């Protein structure tokens, strides 16, 4: 790890000021990606602004048919929230299957989505549920938030404060994990919402995306049978030592059918 200046932010405004004041400052949420990167000397920020002590960023609120999760809320808190389980059980399920117990007790929703790892679980939940990302400057629809591999709509120094999930009629997430890392090789979040059916796919491509053909098929017939024989297009899907693009394309169909079936 190279040397850097550590700052503990006291509030969102304080964090914004500190990150703006650094030459090459980064925000740290749970540190689940940043810390290994620093330890491997793959990043050399001048300043690390830690959000851990910002109380206003923590917590879960359920009201008016929506679940709002503070950006610094750890996965374990979402996974074990009885309120989340009652309002959007699929969201609690997603959080409960991220990483391992250590990750779930350090990693945060804000950190996960700001990092936008192409194989992370939360982006599928945000897109699948049509969530809204709240920042210290504005609100961004999930469909517009995730813009590319490790890229988001966040501007320089913009801080995620919360994510607001509208409760769907039904939803489920099924992932096929990478045997080593247990990130998603393919994860599919399916939801039937007031605004229509949404099928969000993570792990398969460079960034979370929606399978619109599957959404259309499910609009008329929300059943696994409606997706029979459907796969994703292998074009532009990820290919690595763990899975070919064809395998990923196939798994999108399998996971989507299983997710629909899990919706009950």
């Amino acid at each position, binding site marked *: *790890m*190279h040397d850097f200046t550590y700052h503990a932010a006291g509030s969102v405004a304080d964090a914004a000021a500190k990150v703006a004041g650094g030459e090459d400052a980064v925000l740290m949420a749970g540190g689940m990606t940043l810390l290994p990167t620093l330890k*491997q*000397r793959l990043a050399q920020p001048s300043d690390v602004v830690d959000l851990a002590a910002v109380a206003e960023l923590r917590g879960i609120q359920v009201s008016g048919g929506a679940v709002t999760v503070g950006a610094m809320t750890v996965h374990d808190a979402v996974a074990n929230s009885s309120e989340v389980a009652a309002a959007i059980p699929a969201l609690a399920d997603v959080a409960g299957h991220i990483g391992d117990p250590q990750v779930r007790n350090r990693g945060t929703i804000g950190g996960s989505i700001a990092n936008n790892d192409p194989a992370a679980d939360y982006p599928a939940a945000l897109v699948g549920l049509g969530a809204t990302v709240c920042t210290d400057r504005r609100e961004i629809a999930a469909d517009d938030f995730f813009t590319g591999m490790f890229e988001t709509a966040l501007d320089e120094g913009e801080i995620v404060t919360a994510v607001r999930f509208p409760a769907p009629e039904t939803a489920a997430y099924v992932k*096929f994990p990478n*045997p*080593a*890392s247990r990130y998603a090789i393919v994860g599919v979040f399916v939801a039937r919402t007031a605004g229509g059916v949404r099928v969000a796919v993570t792990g398969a491509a460079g960034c979370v995306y929606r399978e619109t053909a599957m959404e259309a098929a499910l609009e008329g017939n929300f059943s696994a049978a409606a997706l029979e024989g459907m796969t994703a297009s292998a074009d532009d899907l990820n290919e690595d*030592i*763990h*899975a*070919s693009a064809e*395998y990923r394309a*196939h*798994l999108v169909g*399998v996971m989507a059918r299983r997710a629909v079936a899990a919706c009950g």
Partner: protein
Amino acid sequence: MPKDGIGASVKRKEDYRFITGQGAYTDDIDRPGQTYAVFVRSPHAHARIASVDTSAAAAMPGVVKILTGADYAADGLGGLPCGWQVTGKDGPMVEPPHPPLAADRVRHVGDQLAVVIANSAAEARDAAEAVAVEYEPLAAAASIDAALSPGAPQVHDEAPGNLCYDWELGDKADVDAAFAGAHHVTRVELVNNRLVPNAMEPRAAVAEYDRATREYTLYTTSQNPHVIRLLMGAFVLQLPEHRLRVVAPDVGGGFGSKIFHYAEEAILTWAAGKVARPIKWTAERAESFVTDAHGRDHVTVAELALDADGKFLGLKVDTRANMGAYLSTFAPCVPTYLYATLLAGQYTTPKIWCGVQAVFTHTVPVDAYRGAGRPEATFVVERIVETAAHEMGIDPAELRRRNFVPPDAFPYQTPVALVYDSGDYEGTLAAALADADYNGFAARRTEAEARGKLRGIGLSAYIEACGIAPSAVVGSLGARAGLYECGEVRVHPTGSVTFFTGTHSHGQGHETTFAQIIAERLGVDIDAVEVVHGDTSKIPFGMGTYGSRSLAVGGSALSRALDKVETKAKRIAAHLMEASEADIEFADGQFTVAGTDKSVGFGDVALTAYVPHNYPIEELEPGLDETAYYDPANFTFPAGCHVCEVEIDPDTGAVEIVNFAASDDFGNVINPMIVEGQVHGGIVQGVGQALLEGCVYGDDGQLATGSYMDYTMPRADDVPSFTVSTRTTPCPHNPLGAKGCGEAGAIAAPAAVMNAVHHALASRGVSRIDMPATPARVWQALNA
């Protein structure tokens, strides 16, 4: 028998220390004035070192010393030695130099060429990054195929065509003749996948030099500190043994990877003399991936000839084995003497030929890894036997029964040099089949099919040669050292006992097992026994722990030392009771005079030995401290049968192990709980090889699986609970009747799992899938 004696499942004495964080590992050792080392390592698989400029790095804060390959060469010291010579068809193996710091060329990613020593680890790391190395990258040969192809890049100028040796065992013409009369020939092509060991504790070392005594001390994560002292002192650094102490304290797992003498040990010791301050080095996990010797990496074509009844007539095995970039300590013997000699398996196959080409590649050296040669042999034999059974329409269990070495045939001379000592192969097969409910499989398969799952069952009737090793035998095979063991039993004046053993425990539970034997033999409480290992200044000598040898060889040395203690104690007891030595009996810690009610306790005899008033000094030396060296008469031959049942999800290719039963013959068992733990761990490691672990190099020699993000270690939820049991035929040639249990699971499991996977996939037309059978591979095979 004392409650904590032989056969009792005593909880491990060492575990309190380990689970409360009180273990003392090498990285826990801090010496006054300690410095820290970071190695400069090649990012290239193959490159010429054009220049190494340390000037900028040397000027950085905290830097104490930077040493390069040129500095090492200038001191005229030795290269890392290989402990075993294999003589091939064309003469002795090619043994290229292995400089501990590369000076001219680097030959694998991770090859070290300089070391930076600084006041802190962070300063050493910063400075190591500032060492300016100018590389001229060269083309690399990163696989066996690439290295053997015409015009391949040469790893060593001394080894044309990258061939280390071309070796064979058996008479090929004789075996061909057996094939000529065959009713059926089964042929398989197999890859025994390369594995990265991944002990929980990374390698580490602390070296220091005492200018007053001129003594060097090396603390290191080793399975065999005396061997390291011998190799490093005599062959590398030319340091006299009486001024070189090697300590292997608590070690967190080895699996073979900590047998070998590594460059870092020698370089730290050498550098400690130069800076006259202690130096610590601890590998980071990413560093372990590219510097710990890897395991396996064979490509094999095998053919089995059978008659119409399924009797084996002959076996031909042609193997190419990857040595990596340099010859590690035991590497040449693994694919030869620890492999080809096991190809008879549990069977009476009369004619066997094995050819092995050992190949240099631009990859991390490959050496012994849990099982070392025997998992590879078992995989060949058990895959081809199972395949032959299915091809001929004979039940795989029945085909094995028709070919087993029968229980009355021992000692049994195989056609591949070994003489099996004892066994009951039908017994372990029957037990494993019963535990696996083999007869109920068809119904379970039908039920699985209804759920859309493919179900398969596979057997692995393995054998291993353990208790390594009879010195005369291995010496004749090219070993450059005998492989006996040493034990010293020191009885203290009040009757407590310290046992000094040349074996080394890095997870095996020796502190408990050996204490149980002593408690049993001397009638003392197990808590009155301490076991000491891992320090060349305390233990007379030792060969260490590997090859399931500690109990069979080290325990036998203990048994012999206890014989000596008992003999002398009886003489003292005879004196105390004024009886004839011949009339003294010893049981449950009491010496008695036959036919009388006279008795004296072990503790009183011990005290008398050290407080020799009224003692016949002229006839009997004071003290009760005996040492024995035990050289085994033969290998031991643990064997058994493992049965695995899998379900495969054809939609995803995911393989689930739904049942696993093992019946093992380890000879006499001292602590059944520890044995069960060893079997469980071994099976998980074998499952790891079969389904999860695959070390992947790119064609350019870059390691694609260099972290846990990409290299899959088995986890608890990858396996079910296992049904394990033991059936005993005692080893007839060692005093404990023990055979060894440490490697069996890793040896047996891969073939059992892969036989089950092939069985499950056969109905869908899949005939070959290589390890690791990952979901992607299985899906690909199903959709090819």
